[in-house]
Structure formats: C-alpha cells, structure tokens
C-alpha cells in the first residue's frame, strides 16, 4: 500500500488565512488544491511536505469564471470541469479551453483538479498551461498583508515544477485579454486517453479583416517548461492565414522546442510532432476565427 510520510494538515478559512499559515510554517508547507498532483507525489514520497494547507474550504472565494471589462478572470480553485463546461469561456475563446479540457486527464481528475494546481505544478506536459501561455494569461499572486502582483506567463514557469510563486504567496487568479475575431485550438497526441501529452500544441489567433492581428502558440511536453513559441507568433502576426503559413509556424515550433527522449518517445519524434500539431492547431484556430 502506498502511504504518505507523516504530515500535518490544516484547512484555510480565507485566502489571507492560507497565506498567514504559509508564513507561520516557514517554507515547510504546501497548498492543497485538487490534490491530483500533490497527493500522488506524497504517496510515492517524492514530495514530503511537513504540512498541507487545504484551500478547498475557500472554494466559494476562488472558483469563478467571469468577465470584467475586457478581461476574463478565472479563480485559482476553478475546477477543470467548470472550464470544460463554461459557455462564457467557449464563447470568448472558442474552442481552445474546451478542446484542452476535453482531453485533459479523465472525468474523475477533471472534477477536482484546478486551474491553480495545474499552473503551480509547472509540469511541462500540462495541457492547461499550454492554453494559458498561448492566450498570454497573467497570474495574480497574493502575498502577506494582501499585497498582490501580476506575473506574465513567461515569468511564471521558471523550470520543471518551479514557479514564480514565492513561499508565502498564493496564486489566486488568472486573467486573459479578450480579442475580437478569436479562434483557438488545442491538439494533443497521447499514448492513451487520459495520459499526459506526448506533445501538445495550443494556438490562439485573432483575425480581423483577413489579417492575423494577435497570435499565441505554445507547446507542451517538449521542454523544461511549457514552450512559448514566440518566433512562430512573430511569423504569423500581420499575415493572411494560409496553410503554408501555418506549416512554416509548425517548422518554427519544431526548431524552437527542446524535447527530451523518454518513455513517451524519442526527441526527434517529439520535435516532428510539435510541428505537425502546431500546424493543425493553427489551421483549426483560423477556421474558428473566420467563423466567429
């Protein structure tokens, strides 16, 4: 039987209480959200926190998807299933969230796993992180005394399982700018349904007047963190969408990612597939954008 090492458990009564507890425990504590990444690591004794602070009691404060002005805001404890089912998200960012959430893990994991947990786990194979990077989301971190700072995704994931979130900070919200003429897609190849990606590509395009105004491209599982393929975005913006253009963007993704060989496949395979999936995601994104 797998059992975690001895550890203390407490429940947070508010975001500020959770942060106060983090502060009091001095680096030895971990936030427990959906628990689908943290608990397995604890049972395998890969993670041995002395203390876990359960933030599920403050779900009412942190589970939301709402529009404020030109921004969509998603609370850190919003479950995968909420993002999968949200019409607001799918209307605003067709169909990138729904695409990704439909292939992320399985219904059991989606019922509990959260936005915050996905980003803070900083697993380079996370599907949702790819979407957030492609949409250029911004993470809102709160620290002691209610101090908040907003961190761009490029600064958020600093390495595998490492983020910009400080030891006494918590991620509370992710914000996205809304763009007109948006279309997005998430493409994933996996060994089996519910498995982490061998490679995944997320793409978002905003097309107006037949020209790509905004582009976001990210690839999962092909580098130390979710890979933001900026050169592909540069190649896309200002051009008219075409299959040839997307193929070129795919080639850039292949070139700019840095996969490792592992049980899911050798690096040359992942590199090639990053290109294929990027191209496919972009062409679906464009088709959606042109319809919206």
């Amino acid at each position: 039987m797998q059992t975690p090492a001895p550890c203390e458990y407490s429940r947070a009564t508010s975001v500020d209480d959770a942060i106060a507890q983090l502060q009091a425990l001095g680096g030895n504590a971990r936030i427990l959200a959906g628990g689908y990444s943290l608990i397995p690591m604890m049972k395998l004794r890969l993670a041995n926190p002395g203390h876990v602070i359960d933030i599920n009691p403050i779900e009412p404060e942190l589970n939301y998807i709402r529009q404020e002005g030109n921004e969509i805001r998603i609370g850190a404890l919003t479950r995968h299933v909420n993002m999968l089912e949200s019409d607001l998200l799918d209307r605003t960012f067709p169909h990138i969230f729904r695409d990704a959430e439909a292939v992320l893990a399985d219904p059991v994991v989606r019922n509990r796993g959260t936005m915050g947990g996905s980003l803070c786990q900083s697993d380079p194979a996370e599907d949702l992180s790819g979407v957030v990077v492609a949409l250029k989301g911004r993470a809102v971190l709160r620290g002691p005394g209610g101090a908040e700072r907003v961190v761009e995704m490029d600064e958020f994931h600093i390495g595998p399982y490492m983020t910009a979130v400080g030891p006494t900070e918590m991620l509370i919200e992710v914000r996205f700018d809304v763009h007109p003429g948006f279309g997005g897609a998430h493409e994933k190849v996996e060994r089996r349904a519910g498995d982490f990606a061998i490679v995944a590509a997320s793409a978002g395009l905003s097309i107006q007047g037949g020209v790509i105004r905004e582009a976001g491209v990210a690839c999962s599982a092909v580098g130390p963190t979710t890979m933001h393929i900026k050169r592909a975005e540069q190649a896309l913006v200002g051009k008219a969408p075409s299959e040839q253009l997307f193929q070129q963007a795919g080639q850039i993704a292949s070139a700019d990612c840095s996969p490792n060989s592992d049980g899911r496949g050798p690096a040359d395979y992942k590199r090639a597939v990053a290109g294929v999936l990027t191209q496919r995601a972009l062409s679906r994104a464009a088709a959606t954008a042109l319809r919206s």
Partner: protein
Amino acid sequence: MATTETTPGRHPNWYGHATGDKFGKVADAPVGFGHMKRKEDARFIRGLGDYMDDVRLPGMLHSAIVRSPYAHARINSIDTSAALAHPKVAAVIIAKDLETLGLAWMPTISYDTQAVLAGDKARFHLQEVAFVIATDAYAAQDALQLVDVDYEVLPAIVNCRKTLDPDAPLIRDDKVGQTDNLASPLWEAGDKANCDRVFAEADVVAKRTILDPRCHPCPMETCGMVADMNPATGQLNIYNGNQAPHAHRTVYAQVAGLPEQNIRILCNDIGGGFGNKVPVYPGYVCAIAGSIVAGAPVKWIEDRSENLASTGFARDYLMYSEMCSKNGRITGLRVDAIADHGAFDSTAQATKFPAGFFHIVTGSYDLDGAHCQVKAVYTNKAPGGVAYRCSFRITEAVYLVERMVDALAMEMNVDPIELRMRSFIRADQFPYETATGWVYDSGDYHKAMKLAMEIADYEGLRREQQEKLAKGEMMGIGVSFFTEGVGAGPRRHMDILGLAMNDGAELRVHPSGKAVVSLSAQTQGQGHETTFAQIVAEELGISPNEIMVRHGDTDKTPYGLGTYGSRSTPVSGGAVAVVSRKVRDKARQFAALMLETRAEDLAWEKGRWFVKGDPERGATIESIAEYAYSTSNLPEGLEGGLDANAVYDPPNLTYPFGAYISVVDVDPGTGKVHMRRFIAVDDCGVRINPMIVEGQIHGGLVEGIGQALMEIISFDEQGNCMNASFMDYLLPTALECPTEGFELGETVTPCPHHPIGAKGVGESPCVGSPPCIANAVIDALYQAKGIRHMDIPCFPARVWAAMNGNEQPPQ
C-alpha cells in the same frame, strides 16, 4: 459424450453494440444454458465485494518490503537496528532469519529456485530484501528507509540477446556448477530433418525476428495475503486471493513443511487474476513467516508499483522465425526462440515441457513440417513468466504464427486471408495431429473465417483501403486465426509438482430441492457462480437461482488445481456435469421407489423422471429430493440423501479457435493508431451462458488492444524497471476500444470429449487479438510505405519510427 443440442435463447449470431433488446431479455434465469445476468454482479456493482484488503483481523499487523534499488548488487550487510527501534515496528525479517526456517529460497514450479529475500545478492531492480512488520501500514512504510543495506553494485544485464555472451555478468552464482546465464538446456519439438526438407523444397520463405515483449497481467486488485498462524492450535489460516487455492496449500505444506491438514486457504472475492495470482510470491512466504515470528496475523498487500515491477510478468519471448510455402500453400515453420525468464525461472506453467505449450506454434494450419527450439536465459529482470490470460506460452506461439502467416502472404503477394484459407486444417481432418504432436479435437476453421469476412465485408474494406491510400490516408486491415489448447490437462503432458491436473466437484441437493455445488476452481471475475449453477441446472432442471456455487475455501471444497489456462469449464465444468449426472442417476433410484417401478423403465426430461410410455407418471427433482431425505424405505445399497462427488480427469485439452479481423487508421503525422473496428468470431464449442462468453470476449479483446498498442515493461541500461506505475504502464480504456464497437460472431463446434461439449473461452480473445491488431498496423504501413514489420507495442512514437523506416525492437 458430445452433445449437439442447441442452446436455448441464443441470439442471432452477430451484432454490433449491445442493445437494450439484447439485455432486456435476460431477466429470467433459464433452467439450464442461455443468457442470464451474473448472479455475483449484484454484490460487485454495489461495492459489496469482499477483497483481500477488506480482511481485518483482531491484532493484525501490517507489512512493507524493502526493495533493491539496483538490478544487480552484492549485499554486504543489512542493518535492521534502526528499523527495529521504531516504536511501531514489531519485526524485520531478512534472508538470514528465513534461513533458520529453511525458507530463504523456495522451489519454483518450473524446477528452479527463487530467493524469497535477497541475501547474497540482489538480482533484479526492486527485488525483495527485507520484510518490515509494524502495527500500521504507515509505520511499516516509514520504517523502510530505516533498514540500512550495504550494496556493492555489479554490472547488470537485461538484454536476452547478450546475456549468453562470455563477458556477461553471471547472475545465478548461487547455483552449483552454473557458469553462464542459460536457465535450462535447449529444448526442441518437431522433426528437424523433415522440416529442413520442407524448407529445401519451398518456393517462398519469409523470415522475421519477432518479439513478444514483456508485459504484465495487471489485475485491478494487486497481490496480497493475510497470514494468521494460531500459536495455540497450530492452525494456519491464509487469506489470499489466488487462482489455485488447493495447489497453494499443498505447496505451503511441501515448502514450509507445515502440516497440510492445519492449513486453510480462504479466497474471498478476487479483483482479477489473469495469471498474476497463480504463483507463490516472496511476499506470501514472508507474511506466513512473519505471522509465525510475530505470533499475530500479518497482512501484506503490494502496491501498484510492486505489482508491476516484481510479481508475475508475462511474455518476453524473442523469436527468430521462418515460414515457407509451396504451390501457394503454407508448408513449413521453424522457430528459434529465446525465453527471457529474468533472474529466476519461476514460470508459472504446469506442463512437462520447458516452454509450456509453445510448440502449438503451428497454429491452425496443416503443415508438412515444423520445428521449434527454445533457449531459456537468465537476465537481471524480475521473474515470473506467468500465462497472462492464456495457456502456458500459447499467446507467444499464436502471436508468432499469425505474424508469420502475414509476413509470408506479403512475400508471396497474396491476400493474407486467402493464404490462411488455402492452408487451414480442414474440418474433415479432425481429430488432427500437428507436426509438433498436439491432437486437436474438433474444428471448422473455414466456416469461422468466412463468417468473419462476411461480418467485416472484407472485400469492401480492401476497396476502402485503396481509396484512402489514394488520398494519402493510412488504413490497415488485420487478420488473425488462432487455435488455443485449454483445460490443462491430460496427465501424460501436465502436472504441478507431480500433482495430476484433475478437479473435483461435490453436489448436494437439499431436501427442499435446492442445491450447493462446491468447486476447486477459483473465480476471479469469470462468473463461476452463474456458469456452474447453469451446468447443474441444465443437468438436473433446478433453477440456477436455487443453486449456490461454493469455492475459495480449501476446508469446504474438494481438491483440484484451480483456474487458469481457461481450464474452469473444460475441467471443473466437466466435474460438475459428471457429478450432476451422478445425482441424476441416484435420483432415478429414488424415483423408481416413488413410482413403484424399475429404474430402467424411467426416462429423464429436464427436472423430472417419468415412466416410459406413461409420461404423466413422474417425479420432479424437488419431490425426489424430499423423498431421498425422508423415506425409511431404503433398499440394500441405496443410501439416503441426494448428493455425490466427482473428480474429472480431462482426457485431452479442448481446442477453441476463432477468426478475427480488425481495422485501424494510422495518423501519418503522429503515428497514432485509431482502432476503428474489431470483428471476432469465436468457437468455444457449446456456450453455457452466451452473455458471459461475450463478456469474456470483450474483456480479452481490450487486453489484446493494450498489449498490441501500449503495454510494455522495459528496462534502462542499468536494469531499472521503467514502467512501475500506471503513469508509465498504460492500460487501455473504453476510449481505445473500436469506435464501431466489438462485432462478435460465433460458430459452434462441440468438443467431442467433454461431457457438455464445451471448450474454454476466457483467454481466446486475449490470445487471438494482439497479432490481429499488429497485422492491421503493419498492413497500413506496408500499403502506404512498404514497411514489412514492426514489433508491438505500436504506440505513436514507435509507429512513426517504423513509418520512417527506423523502428527498433522495444527491448
């Protein structure tokens, strides 16, 4: 006696998705054979099953195992003092302690020895080194890191191709006289000279190196035991979900020298076995030793990683093979195989042949010559070699022959089904003796193949494939035709440590006419509580709902060797039919008394004896039962009561077969294989409960999909097991099943030597499907890119490599 009576309530012979209609009809239990919901499912689907981990005894201790982090390492010392100082630790057992009980090494049923705990050396990654017993499961885990083992790392070898090289490290230095890593002498079957002649005369020869990679049966419930030695009485109660409780009891008596009459094995519900729960594992021996040492019940339950990494792997056969044809027909096969046993040959197989049934490798074909030889080797990998949902090594044999037929068809440039049709054993040739010495009982292979082609619309599929190809899409059509040999088995070929493979049955019909039938077979989810009740029902005319099937307690059931190799229906089913007929015969005596006539003047119809020529005058089984227990009017030689015992000694194996066709689409950009269709025509003789048969087929096909597309236990250069969790060892889900559902068909060729004409079926789909799917993937690659071979598992990266002409064997 073979029976050809038709099964009541049989549905039309094929369908796609299960429909409401089909399942709507099964509410009432047939009195005998036919569709019927499984009696046991009511408790399973409500979460009321009673599994290993549910066993909680007063004062029970828990355990965990310290495992070697190295694949090959000398153990200089083991210091347990820190662990023993842990306040909740009751005992720590290491090899030295087992030595005093004579249990440091145990014999395997393949006539090798296996370390229970590593004492001198660790020989595979995650091998058992120390057994920690504590008052709770958490503490046992906590104490693992307090056991200090001083290892001296040795070079490890995990590649079976290189393990016989002169510079390979010697793994089994414990064996006197062992100088290399050969596990057993070269073994062969078939007439080599004749086979060579057949090859010399052939027009076309196909040659392939085929790997059936190491995989794992992976039952949902892992292995475990609660051992409870009562120091006061010397009674040892063993709670352990295993597939052969009586055989295990005998093994414990022989190995541990415990008095057999004092050992009681209790199997509760078992969450899947698939061969993984046939062997006796080090954890079991340690739990028993632990209970003796601690004087309290000891529970050992392995976790998923331990299950995948240490108990009961399957396959791991590397096969250099050639198949030839003459005048358009397959004529010969030769195979040179390496069996990789890991560090100990604990292959769980009950035959007198070192490679089990592997020489059934000639498959369903009427060959002029065949020869196979098998070399068994040691490597620094976990031992096991269990028959994962198959008779011993039949999956490997079927995988080989069905891949080779396709390879030969490719070289001959003929359609793979056409080549099979030309080369099958014909219906009029049964009983048929194969070139390697098996005697197949019955079959009509052409009929089954034709039915599969019809269901599939095979010609239409080939047309569609060409159309797709023109558009740059990759579609593959795979075929396999398997013959299995199941129901081990006849004494001349099979035993377990000298025990004949018979199974007993005991039937008691109570005064009310309700019955209890006790079996030695051990269900792990196969539906025994229903199927065996239906056999009694068919023979005696008592409703299956009024028949209790008892199994899983060695104190309450007759002796027999258990459930694996699809042997329950062929062997225990035979016993149950025979015992039912004995009871029926006894009932006839009572009926004669009741009806005041002679027994010879009575005739039987289901549920009643009646006077020949006067059918109105009769006695039902219910009234006979009451009479049997209440009459005071017993003639000489007839005892009261209505019960009987039987032991069934199978005269031959039964040989189920089937024709499978699958359709896949391969993504040219990513190598991802999508299962679109799977057509399975199975012939398992008479079907007792067609719904259970179909369930078995569905499950086995899914496991075949897993093996063909994703499952493998592989090792890195240092010998570390790379697939010791469900993150790395993938099991198929509903989403990997064919999008068009399983399309099943059936033909019925009764077994001529089985009392009810039934053959085994539990394993057929898992045996027949892996080559079918591999053939489909390779067909897609061949049609589009001219690729002639790849090994399984066909997961995306490997298919993509194959597509680009550089696939490497996965191990």
